[in-house]
């Protein structure tokens, strides 16, 4: 066996003219064998999943379709969005204050901020929301007065803190603890030379923070805050326990009447996915915008 007829081993021996003739063609890329097998396995699995989704009557797609745009579902979506925005606003405002206190306040503010973060990160948000929901039983009336000496003026707690506000406070105060950590990390990411230059120019502490440090901290803050927004959107579903009327509560109300739990949970999931997808797109845009023109050059120290 001379091997000269086995052309498998002769492909590397070529005419220069042949090569030149095909020089502008891209070589055909090989795919690793593992990639082909992996791809095939995934396709087969996907096929199974689709088959199950289609053939199992338990998914009850007609019901999904019927309730997808149901008025009470749409109302639930509105409540979920309102809750998300309100709770994130509370969380961001309180979180920035906490971060600034922790970074540059005196020892007592710093300790208070640390204590706050310890408490709110250390207890489940579900428990916190329940607390706010039952605040009325803890303090039936709130008002101004001397501790132990009765009220001068007071209001019915349930009127001052309606259940929606309880939900917002529960979610927002919890969120503030996480935002505070994110903002603190962002502030620390700005080189000290930046605030020093602002100091030397005569900018006060607040102006330095507002015009010099915070805008540059944004690049480090925006991506994780975007994630927090997405988590919050899903986390609002815990307010189900105090009855605010969010998306999840809307579908549970419906299936408590018609017992079609699975299709209605699918309705909720579809909407949560739609909303988180939109938020992800917004986040990507913001990241692009705030990434522009920022640089470490000239700020290093």
């Amino acid at each position, binding site marked *: 066996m001379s091997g000269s007829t086995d052309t498998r081993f002769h492909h590397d021996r070529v005419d220069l003219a042949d090569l030149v003739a095909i020089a502008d063609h891209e070589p055909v890329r090989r795919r690793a064998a593992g990639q082909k097998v992996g791809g095939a396995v995934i396709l087969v699995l996907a096929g199974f999943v689709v088959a199950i989704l289609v053939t199992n009557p338990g998914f009850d797609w007609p019901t999904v379709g019927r309730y997808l745009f149901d008025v009470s579902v749409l109302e639930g979506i509105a409540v979920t969005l309102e809750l998300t925005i309100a709770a994130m606003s509370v969380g961001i405002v309180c979180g920035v204050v906490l971060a600034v206190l922790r970074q540059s306040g005196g020892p007592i503010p710093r300790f208070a901020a640390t204590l706050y973060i310890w408490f709110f990160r250390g207890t489940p948000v579900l428990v916190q929301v329940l607390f706010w929901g039952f605040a009325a039983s803890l303090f039936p009336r709130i008002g101004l007065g001397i501790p132990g000496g009765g009220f001068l003026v007071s209001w019915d707690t349930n009127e001052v803190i309606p259940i929606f506000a309880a939900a917002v406070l529960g979610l927002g105060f919890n969120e503030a603890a996480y935002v505070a950590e994110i903002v603190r990390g962002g502030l620390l990411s700005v080189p000290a030379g*930046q605030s020093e230059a602002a100091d030397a*120019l*005569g*900018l006060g502490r607040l102006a330095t923070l507002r015009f010099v440090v915070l805008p540059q901290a944004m690049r480090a803050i925006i991506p994780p805050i975007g994630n927090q927004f997405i988590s919050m959107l899903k986390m609002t579903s815990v307010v189900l326990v105090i009855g605010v009327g969010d998306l999840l509560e809307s579908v549970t109300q419906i299936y408590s009447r018609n017992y079609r739990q699975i299709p209605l949970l699918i309705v909720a999931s579809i909407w949560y996915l739609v909303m988180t997808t939109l938020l992800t797109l917004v986040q990507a845009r913001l990241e692009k915008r705030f990434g522009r023109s920022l*640089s470490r*050059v*000239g*700020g290093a120290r």
Partner: protein
Amino acid sequence: MTDVATGPVIRAHDVHKSFGSLEVLKGIDLTVERGEVVCLLGASGSGKSTFLRCVNHLETVDRGFILVDGRLIGSDLVRGRLHEARPSVVTERRSRIGMVFQQFNLFGHMTVLENVILAPMRVKKEAREVAVERAVRLLGRVGLGNKQDSYPAHLSGGQQQRVAIARALAMEPTLMLFDEPTSALDPELVGEVLDVMRYLAASGMTMMVVTHEMGFARQVADTAVFMSEGRIVEQGPPEKVIGAPDHERTRAFLGKVL
């Protein structure tokens, strides 16, 4: 309050400063007259930056005092004792002292023009047009009239440092402090920054410059001050201090840098 247009710009008396147990300044006495250019020389770690930073109160002085334009920066004299001044007061007094850093410290998220107009608008509450007009003039003077809308990251080190000088000048300072303004620059970019500083000195600005550029010190400084281990060892005309120093330490230092 009126500006003291006469008398020395800086009067430092017996300035002491420690970081923890490390005594960095061990009694500095220095007077800088109006229009005078003082170059601070000395080995790394001798306390030059710390002294410069004490002048505009980026560092607090432990003992002694520094008057700028006849006024205390970081403290007030109340009933025979110095009391630390409120931050807002310090900020206001500091705004007439320009400072230029080794690392430029331009604000990276702002264009060149925005860097220059920020403090006039936010500290002096100037109208935007007024601030812009001056900024454009100053940028022209440092040779960067065409870079207004660039971001710092897109400029060379020499250009960034010239912007930093324009930014400091925009507050119309009576005193300019430079902390090794050319030490972070590639050698071929040093000249353009020194040229701007030379021009500034010629225009009558009072300047205190920490530098290792002996050529510049000889040529531009009215007074050269040599510091070692937190003390002023020798001071006088640069041709004397650099050319024919009295002290062994000065000679040893110059032997290394020249």
